[in-house]
């Protein structure tokens, strides 16, 4: 069930202010961390087993350790673009406890040896950006950010940068280009940002939730933190549950609990008389799982084994009242709109997929289209410059496999329903 680490006292009024945050023990972890060496902080992070909460699930401590050592200028960028459909956990964190993010970010920067940092926040998060700016001003005034933090000799600049609204700017290298003032297009990797990131400097990029977890790890100790959750998915996770559930919202869970508990016990399950048709375990780019796969433990490896992914931790529930075609079309249209256009399979593949789905919708498709659509998804997966193409092809591909019969039935149904096919004359 729920376990409160990040969300402990989250609804306390005024937690977004330094006063309340400090009363609840805020910035104590920072003081503790600054008393250690960066290597010691890093070893705590590594011991915690914390995996990135943004989507890829890469070990955070390892990512920090990839940064070159030495006194070169290093950057830390917090990815607060939270653009994956269905994901709204970072919004709540930044809105209600912005200091937790700032504290975590400063500790991570200390461990990584970064001297400049940025929070890239999506443009739509106006309130959250305002609150973050206010919190940052307080933190700066109190000496938690800036020159010689808490007298430790460690200095860090921090700037909150508001994005202009593109899904691709949540992709780490697209984010870097956007932050540099360019068109937000993903970059070719390698070089990875750890070696050549922002302004060609070594850069650590972490999600809001990942960084917000850092103070907890320092407080508890890495090894104690690693005892929460499963062996390979340690800790707690914020899960945004949306779609056909009675109590949508953010829930903090211990990783490894059955997914059913999240959807039914925490979020209240689908409305009366309906059942789960399928669900996205980790945002709209995760392959869908069926209503018969609700007992999969909610952690990185179990979901991967089930053929999907934990992604950003956004569960979107689709109940049996919704045709799968409509779900597929909605997802595909989103990715077509958001494809940056840089690489061929994504640019052309997303747009072709939408056209085929629209043809089914208009009642003009043939069963062959389903095969072509499936092969187009195969041709996209793994062949793109970044993961955006896969982000459409994986869920669409999974829908075609899992709901082939329904697709075929809908092809026939929509053909019959189409006015021109039925021979109907417009009134």
């Amino acid at each position, binding site marked *: 069930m729920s376990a409160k680490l990040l969300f402990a006292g989250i609804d306390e009024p005024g937690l977004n202010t330094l006063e309340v945050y400090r009363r609840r023990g805020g910035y104590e972890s920072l003081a503790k961390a600054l008393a250690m060496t960066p290597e010691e902080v890093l070893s705590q992070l590594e011991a915690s087993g914390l995996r990135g909460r943004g989507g890829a699930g890469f070990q955070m401590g390892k990512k920090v350790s990839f940064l070159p050592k030495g006194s070169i200028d290093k950057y830390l960028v917090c990815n607060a673009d939270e653009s994956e459909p269905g994901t709204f956990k970072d919004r709540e964190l930044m809105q209600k406890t912005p200091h937790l993010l700032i504290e975590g970010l400063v500790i991570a920067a200390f461990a990584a040896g970064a001297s400049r940092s940025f929070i890239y926040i999506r443009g739509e998060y106006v309130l959250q950006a305002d609150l973050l700016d206010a919190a940052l001003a307080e933190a700066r005034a109190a000496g938690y950010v800036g020159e010689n933090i808490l007298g430790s000799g460690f200095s860090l600049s921090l700037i909150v940068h508001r994005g202009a609204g593109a899904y691709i700017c949540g992709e780490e290298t697209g984010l870097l280009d956007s932050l540099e003032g360019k068109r937000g297009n993903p970059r070719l990797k390698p070089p990875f940002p750890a070696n050549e990131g922002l302004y060609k400097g070594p850069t650590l990029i972490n999600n809001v939730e990942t960084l917000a977890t850092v103070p907890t790890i320092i407080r508890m100790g890495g090894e104690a933190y690693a005892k929460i959750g499963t062996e390979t998915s340690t800790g707690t996770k914020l899960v945004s549950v949306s779609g056909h559930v009675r109590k949508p919202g953010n829930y903090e869970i211990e990783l490894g609990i059955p997914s059913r508990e999240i959807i039914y016990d925490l979020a209240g399950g689908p409305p009366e008389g309906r059942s789960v048709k399928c669900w996205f375990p980790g945002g709209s780019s995760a392959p869908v799982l069926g209503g018969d796969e609700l007992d999969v433990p909610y952690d990185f490896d179990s979901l991967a084994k089930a053929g999907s992914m934990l992604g950003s931790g956004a569960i979107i529930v689709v109940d049996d009242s919704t045709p799968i075609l409509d779900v597929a079309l909605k997802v595909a249209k989103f990715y077509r709109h958001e494809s940056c256009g840089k*690489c*061929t399979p994504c640019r052309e593949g997303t747009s*072709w997929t939408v056209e085929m789905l629209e043809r089914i919708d208009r009642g003009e498709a043939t069963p062959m289209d389903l095969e072509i659509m499936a092969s187009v998804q195969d*041709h996209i997966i*793994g*062949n793109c*410059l970044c993961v955006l193409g896969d982000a459409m092809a994986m869920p669409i591909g999974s829908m075609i496999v899992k709901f082939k019969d329904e697709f075929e039935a809908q092809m026939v149904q929509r053909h019959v329903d189409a006015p021109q096919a039925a021979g109907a004359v417009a009134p």
Partner: protein
Amino acid sequence: MPRPEQNTITLTIDGREVQAPENSMLVDAAKLGDVEIPVFCYEPKLGGPVGACRMCLVEIEGIPKLQTGCSTPVKDGMVVNTQSERVKTAQEAVVEFLLINHPLDCPVCDKGGECPLQDITFGWGGGISRFVDPKRHFVKPLELSPTIAIDRERCILCYRCVRFSQDVAEDNQLVLLERGAHSFVSTFDGHPYVAPFSGNIVDLCPVGALTSRPYRFRARPWDIEDAGSVCTLCPAQCNVTLTVRDERVLRVQARDHPEVDDGWLCDRGRFAYPALGGSGNGAEGGARITEPLLRDGGELRVVSWERALTEAASALKRAGDRSAGIVGGGATGEEGLLLARLLREGLGSANVDSRSAGTLALSIHHALSDPRLQATVSDLEFAHAVLVLEADPISDAPILDLRLRKGVRRHGMKLLQASVADLRERPAELAAELGQAGQEIVILWAERLTAGPDGEGNARALLELAESLALEKVTGAGLLEIPAGANGRGLREAGVLPNAAAGLRESRETGLDTQGIAAALAEGELSALLLFEADLLQAVSPELAERALERATTVVAHATFLTDALRAHASVVLPAQAYAEKEGTIVHPDGRLQRLRPAVAHPGETRAGWQVITELAARLELDLEVLTASMASRQLFDAVPFYAGLTLDEIGGRGIRWQDRPAAGAYRAEVPA
């Protein structure tokens, strides 16, 4: 930054062992093993790989996902497979994706037959399209600029053109608008793409999206022949390929030479070719002269060669040593040598010049052209610092501007600019600033530095600066002069100077330089002037030129175009060849001898320059002993000691720097007093 060192490694591609430079990109390494990996967006001239088109996906052992060969540096022991089913499927898929929105109307596309997309579709595509929906549509074709048409429907969004504009020419005009499948290449607010190097995007485009408006629909690849030559419109001497159809040049394309042009071409070189063609008597103004003209009753009238040559020869003979010759920068070394012989041996006049900057002491010529002090074009790119001295590369030798940008952008070269005043007033400061960057320093200077009464002093100051930086002792450092004329260096070396014989040897007699010739003509001290592809109005002040031409008894002009001055003052006009018709050699500013090769036949009655001079000499009882173009070249190579033993074959299609040959030892290096 000095040139990187390269190790050779061995990798396996499709079962065969291939030796390649370590860290070269896999697509390049594969070529060394005769394996072609198809690419669209990859073009190393544009900078690092971008991995956008995904055409070059290949399998590398030990890496689960397919990798883009364009962005994978090769390592020793790497095992690559470009022929597996998986690779084939991925490459076919990319071709299919690219063709979704690309019109399949190759027969009416101007690129058809020389189109990489067409070739790769045949080579690596699946052969059928499963796409039945409507294609993306744009209004087309549009004028991207007065010289370039853009067809956005054909565009496969490889971004080569945008990258060229942003990362090579740095004019930052081309951008990508919209996103996803709606992306398109454009300029800000649809303004025309007007920039000095815009035409290169036509060469770069792998499809028919960007086409040259002057060439569009003029020919099909099977109608044309390509002829390699060298552009002589400026001293940069870019290597070009001339597209010829029915004895007319229809297009000029870059012919990549890393030591000369880096594969780029300026718009002047690319689009000026219509002026090369045509025929006529020049009467309509601006048109090519292709028949000999003789002034008769105040008017220039078409006459036979025989008549024109006889009249010219007798007029020159009358003038004797009161005649003078000026050779323009477009002339070949052979033409320069023969013309100087005609003046010196045939008329007994030492008044011959190819520079307009005034006479420089021979010792200074020697010092400035000293082989130890000569930088190459690629030195500009890898130098620690480059000083651009009294030069404006974008107008003096445009292509060097791109090389300087490349040096700064890719190799962190430090670029300084200085005027002659800086050189004279604060040389120590300049030296200090340059020295801070490192030892490999190139000074790129223009001939105008040595012009005027202070010319010699300026040249000495330049040599002192070079000495204080020890440029002659450092590899990759040196001087690089941009002469005023395209073949300025070659003409000097051929002895077209008032104070030097061929090979920059001392001449028996010192004559008047260009300024002196004009002044003497204006004063009536000289009476005949031979203008060999030279425009006096550009060499000296217009007033002096006007007075000189007015006063001259005889003006014999060997020219391609009839200028107003010639129309008013020429006694005899002999039609000259344009560079596409010429055969001979020219010398690049860094000492590289390059061959001009005739791409088209002579229009009208035009004859080769060496032939005209030889026939004129014969009428002055001087046998120049030249019967063919190659005999003229042989004579030049024999006349210049540091060209000794050179043959046309040795120069070949890529040229050769005489400083890199053993005969360079024959160069007389004299330190100026």
